[in-house]
């Protein structure tokens, strides 16, 4: 077959073609499941489409969706909420994840159980986790308000989900609970790859625990933490189910991220062209954020 096409894959000058041929199925698959929907999305964002239809005639190309988007206060508010959520949840997850990983990296009785418990939230499906937290933060009968009353922090039930500030924190806590085990597992893997000799030498030199963490643990964890940071950030950026089930983006759009805005515009208001424009902008922001974070990580090594 190769000879019929005039190819001789045994020749050194054409050996690289074998690599391309072997890669072709995977590349085609990726193109089909990632590139094609992306093209459709970009194409839709450049049309005034309310309800799309596969095979339907194209509408004239317009930048109207983007013009409307950049002049919409709702879009800028969604960007701000997304940024706040990304920073809060990523920081919270990193702090909780690294702390728990350091804890279970030590030898103590029940360490195995502690490690399983640490990873448990990661194993719980998102929707189930949100249902549990929805009851914890329930404004009429919830555990959290009950606890606050019992501790004397308040004398009435707190409307967690129907108060903008409280809703944001309820959402952040839920997402941190769901996200920190991933950081823990990644950090624990990183911690176990650090040679014990480094710590022994530092102890001989009189380094304190904080100094050992600052000058040995943290620098050696940076490659793993860099990748973890990117993955957690992207997860918060695109997460939909937790926000949708817990707050639905409300109240008063205080938890409406770009993903929720995309969904509402598409399936709530049937403005698929506009929703695609939000989706495309979200993608661009994600790509830039990832490139910035990954681009910086080698320098921090």
């Amino acid at each position, binding site marked *: 077959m190769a000879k019929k096409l005039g190819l001789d894959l045994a020749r050194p000058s054409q050996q690289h073609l074998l690599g391309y041929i072997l890669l072709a199925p995977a590349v085609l698959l990726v193109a089909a499941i990632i590139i094609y929907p992306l093209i459709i999305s970009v194409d839709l964002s450049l049309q005034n489409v309310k309800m799309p239809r596969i095979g339907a005639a194209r509408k004239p190309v317009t930048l109207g969706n983007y013009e409307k988007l950049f002049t919409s206060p709702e879009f800028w508010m969604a960007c701000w909420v997304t940024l706040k959520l990304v920073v809060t949840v990523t920081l919270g997850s990193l702090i909780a994840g690294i702390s728990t990983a350091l804890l279970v990296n030590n030898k103590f009785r029940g360490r195995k159980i502690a490690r399983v418990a640490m990873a448990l939230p990661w194993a719980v499906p998102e929707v189930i986790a949100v249902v549990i937290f929805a009851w914890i933060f329930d404004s009429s009968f919830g555990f959290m308000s009950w606890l606050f009353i019992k501790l004397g922090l308040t004398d009435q039930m707190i409307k967690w989900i129907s108060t903008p500030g409280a809703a944001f924190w309820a959402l952040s806590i839920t997402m941190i609970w769901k996200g920190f085990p991933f950081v823990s597992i990644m950090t624990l893997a990183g911690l176990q790859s650090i040679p014990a000799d480094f710590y022994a030498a530092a102890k001989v030199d009189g380094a304190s625990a904080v100094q050992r963490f600052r000058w040995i643990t943290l620098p050696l964890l940076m490659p793993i933490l860099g990748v973890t940071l990117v993955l957690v950030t992207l997860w918060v950026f695109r997460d939909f189910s937790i926000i949708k089930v817990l707050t639905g983006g409300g109240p008063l759009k205080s938890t409406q991220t770009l993903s929720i805005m995309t969904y509402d515009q598409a399936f709530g*208001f*049937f403005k698929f062209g506009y929703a695609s424009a939000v989706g495309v902008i979200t993608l661009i922001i994600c790509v830039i954020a990832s490139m910035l974070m990954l681009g910086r990580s080698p320098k921090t090594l």
Partner: protein
Amino acid sequence: MKHLVKKATTAALVASMLCTTAMTAVQAETLRFISWQTDDGGMGDWWRDAIATFEAAHEGVKIEFTKVERASYADSMTTLFAGGQPPHIVHLASFEYQTFAENGWMENLDPWLKKDGIDMTGWAGQDTCRWNDETACIMLLYFGFMMAYNPDILAEAGVEVPTNYEEFLAAARATTKDLNGDGITDQFGTGHETSGGAGQYLTELLNYVLSAGAYWTNKEGKVTIDTPEMIEGLTRYKTIIKEGLSPVDMSAGDVRKLFADGKIAMRLDGPWLYGTMKKGAAADRLKIAFPALTPPVGGSSNVLGMASEISDEQKQLVWDFIKVVMSPDFQRKYATVAGNTPPSPKADVSGVEESVPHFPLLIKTQKAAAAAGVDRIPTGLEIQYGEFGKMVQEEVQRMLIQDLDPADVVKTIQAKAEAIQAG
């Protein structure tokens, strides 16, 4: 000879198999029917009965009855239609079919009705199914809200069953209590969904809006929100929520469950509440009355139609199924099995109260809602109902959170509604 017989037998077997397969290919047909009501106590049984009747009359034809949750129903249907794979039998809420009809995805049923000489005069809520001068669907349910109450809670608070807003408010105030003194209210006067989607939020809010004589638009589709009546309606709703007379941040399902378990004194809801009431801890104590807030919320609920892009043979089968559903027999069963008010004027509902004791009340509330021209979908905002609902929900939430004056809020809603309508 032996070889010839063997060959002939084999040929005959193959021929018979091919014939059977060919016949099966002609006869076998599966119609896709997606609904959110498959597991509903009464409605699910009614649908299955209709499907069985249809299948018995159409040998080899099956209906694949699949459930999609109501919360994700519009999303799923949008995806199916957009992907060119719509269900043959189209079941939609009456506030969402318009978008599908506007895209030409719903078959015009006028020729089918004409062909069979079916007169839709007097069919409750059928006007809502007219879109762009065509019949896009058949109305399945036109209802009126009822008021369910817990007589024990009312008696303990020393109040009568309310018959107007003032009495309703007084009863709600008297029955909202912290029973064990822990600082947490355990029993509420009434209950409304204050979280979740805009559709249910607006329906609950409409109780107070209608009772104050207000509505979103007039019959010509002009936005009529900035009125003294609407200010009064929003004030009433604000009073109920701000005074904590209803639990907050709950879905309608949670509120119904709380009521059924005896934690809420009064609940304004549609006929479907009865199914939940029967399963609750206080099931044997709960009663139903004509709503204190009048005219009752009501109107069209859900519709049945057919996808426009299926084959003519499939359209005929779907139409046959729709005819089964519309038949007087099944319209009667809509009352006896599903416990709902049938839209057909020909439905014989005599004696239904023997199996559904509150049925006369359902008819009364349905007629009261119809007489007042009540519908949940405002004329002139049908296509933008999702966006309009979300906007109203947010502005009302803003009113509650920031303690805004309803007089200012109606001005904002009026302006935003006009902008949405203008596109």
